[in-house]
């Protein structure tokens, strides 16, 4: 992982500009805070997208 922020990580994974939401270490990080959210070794990043549901 070369990305130093959550925003960079999303771009690195080809998800820039897509409709996704993210959490780091089980805490939600709003889209507006992604570029300020620095990532360190061991951070658990969860990225989710829309899915069918009941």
């Amino acid at each position, binding site marked *: 992982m070369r990305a130093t922020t959550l925003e960079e990580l999303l771009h690195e994974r080809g998800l820039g500009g897509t409709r996704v*939401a993210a959490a780091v270490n089980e805490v939600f990080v709003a889209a507006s805070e992604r570029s300020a959210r620095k990532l360190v070794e061991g951070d658990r990043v969860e990225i989710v*997208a829309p899915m069918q549901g*009941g």
Partner: protein
Amino acid sequence: MRTLYGTELVTPLMLGTAQYPSPAILADAFRESGAEVATVSLRRESGGVRAGQPFWELIRELGVAVLPNTAGCFTVKEAVTTAQMAREIFETPWIKLEVIGHTDTLEPDVFGLVDAARILCEDGFEVFPYTTDSLAVAERLVEAGCKVLMPWGSPIGSGLGLLNEHGLRSLRAHFPDLALVVDAGIGLPSHAARAMELGYDAVLVNTAVARAGDPVAMARAFALATLAGRGAVTADPIEPRDMASPSTPLIGKAFLG
């Protein structure tokens, strides 16, 4: 007039969006039934696949209200974080709050449910809690700030219908001003009609429509059933009685004996 956080439904049917044979059939089920609310969910996005984007486009084109769920969450923390992510993705304060308590029955963990509901209501969410028919739990959820409750009819996906009509009737009687929606376990349109006859405001159906041989026709049948049940309530039905009572007037009957 009871509403879903200010939203009135012409057709009191909410449809889930999972398990349909194809996206086209899912879209037709909504169009043919007139269902105005779609439940949706979130999944892990694996890098570059973008699998969720076409689904989001499809739902947006349907023009229905979106009710995201927290399906698969077993803890308060998971459910709250999922709700926050759903609010951002789907751009709605609505959340169908599920905190699951047991993998076999998929019954709600009502303790965690109340805790999560309180956190989310305070954070500005409009919470639709998936709960049981327990009156005590319902009271806690209302205290937490919920203005809609979604008690189960029977276990999710079982199609068993309304297993505890007494409990559902009791909830209706205790909360005359609260919007109530039967969620889970509905298998047939008659179950949906019955829920509406009990004075419920809507029903949520997924498996019974999506897994039917003809999901589009079944969605339409469910819509008609919900409208029939609601019509019956407003038409003030008769009370059942033990003895027969002739419906044909006896006055003026010919003496043929």
